[in-house]
């Protein structure tokens, strides 16, 4: 009888469950997703080091102001990577080198070392053991903790895996990760070059005002240092840009000032309809169909090329925006503010666009 009651209770408990009834809380990356080349033919083994992706992902970018050894082949950047290289050795040996920068909450050294150990099929270690194996590299950014880990996960190809040398440092709200992973011998032969490169990247970062914040500005791609010049119209004052902006200006009087922003992203930066609808929504306007929007967007020819320009007015604010796509980047220029102020500044805004040179 007890057994029957047990089953009755169990079934009743299951019956009480309802799918899709709980509030979920999760975090998603702001970074754009890693996209492979359009016609990738090579199927990668499950535990190959980093993928080699032919074309399609923009230009390869090295870490800021830190030249990499000549035999490191730059690779397209992925979701998390600020720099990515592949080095090839004899008999198909490869090693993958990466530089990733995350925010301050990227875990402590022990957690990350144990994560790397698990990637090469090794058991976790304690703090005491970490102190024994960790080395420290002094740079202008601070000490970089470097570990050299050996292990081959089951089923992995020894030509492509077997050793990780990794460095990690935290500074200015960022945590920087450097990693070389691949064939054990090849990784060993690259160790000194890798350490030099880590030091060079950190010294370059330490010397600059703003350390990289990886996914915080994944798409501004400052490492690529896109070249642009313009003439600031009279009455506009440049203000420090936020992390997403390339440049910011204030125009007009304080009580009715117009905010002018310059933003750039690698790639297409979404469809024109999506962008204009987002701006419409920001000033309290409902979205429009792509066909209806197309009638509101006007071309603007300048010496630098052709821009698209749109002027949208909401109940309390107005936005004039221009954009162009060039050399794998999209550039957005936007002036937003009270309707009357934007009307006054529109001529200056158009002159500003016309003054742009790439």
């Amino acid at each position, binding site marked *: 009888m007890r057994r029957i009651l047990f089953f009755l209770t169990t079934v009743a408990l299951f*019956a009480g469950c309802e799918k899709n009834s709980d*509030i979920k809380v999760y975090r998603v990356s702001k970074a754009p997703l890693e996209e492979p080349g359009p016609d990738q033919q090579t199927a990668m083994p499950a535990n190959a080091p980093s*993928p080699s992706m032919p074309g399609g992902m923009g230009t390869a970018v090295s870490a800021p102001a830190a030249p990499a050894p000549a035999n490191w082949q730059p690779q397209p950047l992925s979701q998390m990577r600020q720099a990515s290289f592949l080095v090839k050795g004899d008999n198909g040996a490869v090693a993958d080198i990466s530089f990733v920068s995350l*925010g301050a909450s990227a875990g402590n050294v022990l957690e990350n070392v144990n994560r790397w150990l698990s990637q090469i099929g090794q058991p976790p270690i304690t703090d005491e053991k970490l102190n024994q194996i960790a080395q420290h590299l002094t740079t202008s950014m601070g000490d970089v903790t470097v570990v050299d880990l050996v292990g081959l996960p089951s089923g992995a190809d020894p030509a492509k895996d077997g050793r990780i040398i990794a460095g990690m440092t935290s500074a200015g709200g960022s945590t920087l990760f450097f990693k070389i992973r691949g064939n054990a011998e090849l990784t060993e032969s690259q160790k000194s070059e890798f350490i030099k490169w880590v030091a060079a990247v950190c010294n370059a970062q330490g010397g600059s005002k703003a350390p990289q914040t990886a996914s915080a500005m994944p798409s501004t791609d400052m490492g690529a240092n896109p070249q642009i010049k313009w003439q600031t119209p009279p009455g506009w004052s440049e203000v420090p840009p936020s992390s997403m902006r390339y440049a910011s200006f204030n125009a007009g009087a304080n009580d009715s000032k117009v905010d002018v922003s310059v933003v750039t992203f690698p790639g297409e930066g979404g469809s024109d309809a999506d962008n204009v609808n987002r701006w419409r929504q920001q000033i309290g*306007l*409902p*979205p429009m169909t792509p066909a209806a929007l197309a009638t509101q967007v006007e071309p603007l020819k300048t010496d630098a090329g052709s821009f698209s320009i749109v002027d949208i007015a909401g109940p309390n604010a107005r936005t004039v925006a221009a954009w162009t796509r060039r050399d794998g980047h999209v550039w957005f220029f936007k002036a937003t503010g009270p309707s009357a102020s934007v009307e006054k500044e529109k001529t200056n805004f158009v002159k500003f666009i016309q003054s742009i040179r790439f």
Partner: protein
Amino acid sequence: MVGKLVDLITSLKLTIVCLAAAMALIFAGTLAQVHLGIHEAQQRYFQSWLVWWPPEGNGLRIPVFPGGHFIGAVLLINLIAAHLKRFRWTWKKFGIHLTHAGLIIMLAGGLFTDLFAVESHMRLERGDTKNYSEDQQHMELAVIDTTGNDLDQVTAIPESVLRKNRTIDHWSLPFRLVVRNYYQNSRLKMLGEAGSAAKPIANQGPGAMIAVEPLPRTTAQDERDVPAAAIEVLPKDGGSLGTWLVSDALGAPQTFSCGGRTWKIAMRTARYYKPYSVTLQKFTHEKYAGTEIPKNFASKVTLIDPERNVNRDVLIYMNHPLRYRGETFYQAGFQQDDRATILQIVHNPSFLAPYIACIIVAAGLLWQFGYHLIGFARQRRRATP
């Protein structure tokens, strides 16, 4: 009393009644799909404890028949109880025990699938990359904290919670959400088009210029409801940030600030994020020559999993799904002149149950018939002079 209950639970008559009721339910549920569509019919007839009449609307609801959950649960209990009561270990009955064990696993697997399996879809145009799938049958109110540099924090409130609760007070939000109006299906119109009597149900964002027209729930298989709600945002430290219209039909999320942070709010199809991404490289739709009859659908996708260092191309086509991290990707459909593919993604922790059950039942029947066959053969041999 207890003895009678045990007799009832373990009786063979109960089994026959349950099987007959299941047959009647399946017949009625199948006919109901004509008017209700497959999803609604499944919910009302098979994924319910009781079948109600009239279904909805006029307040009076009378249970007219046991639902699928009820019949399945009683049958499962009956089978287990009868098995436990009559269990006697002999080789002669080993086959019967195995067969019944297989049936129990099949029934339990069905119940687990119903309770825990999650089906969703991923729509990809060529070159699209996604790391989430969407459940077209369920909506959610996504309240997104976009302040962080690297990550957005999403609080996803299921539509069922919006429907049942007037006030939502969650630890992840520095404000309470009060559901002022809720429509399970609706059409949005600009105030100018909706007539002079129409009034907005929101006073913030685009919703202040939009009228919401309630609609009856759709039952067509190729349509879905467009829920809409008016949500008032009340900071926990007092005051109100106004009432916002949220609807899948609005498109872009709406932005507001609270507690020194920037928030976005949007009603959207429920999302299931994954630690990997899928990119559509190519969709192939082959037809038999000279006809429009489909011959084969295939999606060539690239699977990228940074955690596991996976980057590989996979061809998904009929009867050749991709199985990865406990999820199965089936080729389910296509859209827009073959420009987009639709993959169905099923996460079913008990997907092996039917296979295991069938093997056990087959083994039990083989044992049982084999045992008797050998017995008969021996008797004949002995009887032969």
